[in-house]
């Protein structure tokens, strides 16, 4: 006879909430999670202790498992106090420093999502972004990631401040903000200090794959305005992010951009049409606008200029300089990705869309 404890009992609302949460954290089935998101249930005044315990358990295990799976497991090199540190994420930093802390807003958000139909019910859930912890924002990122295939729902979520001002969301899905050209790129400060930086380290492969996907699908965009806006937003994100990582002494966190360039420019003779070949029709009447669209389409390649500057600065760093170890590390990264070759290839592609090529 088995001595297994009896299954824990929760209310229907709590059960739905847990299914939704597990859907976001990936192990739960998508159909169940999505079905419960589109249901409307009366929100209870509070949750039972059992439900809270299960939510805590799911968040703790689910978020850590997600980060470990997407990239935390990789033996990689990142900066710690200005010096490179090698190993898996939990080997690079003591485990007690890797703690994720969720605020009351995480549970409040899950309760709102379970009680409402997010696409229809107004006002949407909101919270002061300044009070959200990196772990809360990671949960919101996972929520958005799971729901963004529904364009209307994704747009509704983006209209709420905790999503629209979530820098991780901007970094992973810049093209989703392409229609919101006047929106301000949020500050990346939270993600450049611990524990946010640990999350960003683990998510490097996610960011690399997302940006690679964006670059590889640009050639299928037929609308000039769409390609222009997408490039503009990407450019603003790159500008804000590279500026922030440089100021924080964490250039290593921009490595995914280096990797994207390396993969996109793997072939020595990439034509600019790889990015702009899908454009339909003659485009805007003014040459200036057509050139701007084509330049914006190649905005990721322009980041090579920034990295070249970093490389020059790194070469100039002397043994007695504070940033010597970090500079050597960056030079190592450049060598690893054969940056000089990539930068030359990027330059050649960029030149192709310049109507006034003067050398």
């Amino acid at each position, binding site marked *: 006879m088995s001595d297994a404890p009896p299954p824990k009992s929760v209310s229907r609302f709590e059960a739905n909430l847990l299914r939704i949460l597990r859907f976001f954290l990936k192990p739960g089935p998508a159909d169940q999670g999505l079905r419960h998101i589109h249901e409307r249930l009366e929100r209870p005044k509070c949750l039972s202790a059992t439900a809270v315990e299960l939510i805590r358990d799911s968040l703790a295990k689910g978020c850590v498992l997600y980060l470990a799976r997407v990239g935390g497991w990789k033996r990689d090199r990142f900066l710690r106090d200005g010096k490179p540190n090698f190993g898996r994420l939990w080997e690079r930093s003591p485990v007690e420093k890797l703690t994720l802390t969720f605020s009351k807003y995480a549970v409040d958000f899950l309760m709102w999502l379970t009680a409402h139909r997010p696409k229809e019910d107004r006002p949407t859930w909101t919270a002061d972004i300044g009070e959200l912890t990196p772990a809360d924002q990671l949960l919101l990122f996972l929520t958005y990631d799971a729901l963004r295939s529904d364009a209307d729902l994704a747009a509704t979520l983006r209209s709420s401040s905790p999503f629209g001002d979530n820098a991780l969301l901007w970094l992973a899905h810049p093209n989703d903000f392409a229609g919101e050209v006047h929106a301000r790129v949020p500050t990346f400060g939270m993600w450049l200090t611990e524990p946010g930086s640990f999350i960003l380290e683990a998510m490097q492969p996610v960011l690399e794959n997302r940006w690679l996907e964006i670059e590889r699908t640009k050639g299928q965009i037929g609308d000039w305005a769409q390609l222009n806006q997408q490039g503009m937003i990407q450019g603003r994100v790159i500008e804000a992010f590279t500026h922030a990582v440089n100021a924080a002494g964490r250039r290593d966190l921009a490595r995914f951009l280096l990797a994207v360039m390396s993969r996109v420019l793997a072939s020595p003779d990439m034509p600019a049409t790889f990015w702009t070949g899908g454009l339909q029709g003659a485009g805007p*009447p*003014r*040459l*200036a606008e057509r*050139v701007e669209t084509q330049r914006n389409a190649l905005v990721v390649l322009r980041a090579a200029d920034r990295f070249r500057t970093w490389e020059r600065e790194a070469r100039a760093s002397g043994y007695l300089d504070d940033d010597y170890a970090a500079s050597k590390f960056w030079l190592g990264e450049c060598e690893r990705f054969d940056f000089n070759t990539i930068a030359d290839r990027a330059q050649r592609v960029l030149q192709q869309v*310049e*109507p*006034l*090529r*003067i*050398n």
Partner: protein
Amino acid sequence: MSRAYRIRVKEAVTKELSASDEVCADLEVLEILPGDQMAGLLAGQLKARGFTERDGKLLRSQDGVTVSVDPATGEVSVKTEKQEQVDLKTEKEGWGYDDIGPQAQHVRKQLSEQAKQELERRAEKQQERLQGEATEQLEKVLGHVRKELSDAVNAVTREALKQKAAQLGQIKEISEDPEAGSLTIKVEV
């Protein structure tokens, strides 16, 4: 028995149309000498090609095409501008049951509105045509400007190399092959 009146409305409009197009780029000037000296050499080359200096930039305007070069930063802009005054006229005709009463006024107002809308559409077409002309002119001159600026940059590079060589030692021999674009300087140090 009622009688129909033919009502005729004339509208005319004079519009000042303007269209422009512009392409910007950066000149890649090798830093053989310090930046200010390279800028000075570039300015000299451009002045010899008809550019005039204004607010630190070198400008040349010809047939509605303005080429502007900032010798310090290497920023280049080529801009075409076109302006045109168009006189547009139209006449609309309709029918009314009186020639001075409220019904006639109503018909006149309608015809006037129609005429104004047509003039607006025609003005927009003229604007599109002018914009097309400005863009076409820009596309035509780009090749020429590109070649001219490339020549200027090459001349600056040659001159800078000669000056640099003179700083290194005594120049013994200089041979240039404009066809191949090569320059050989022998220096005794």
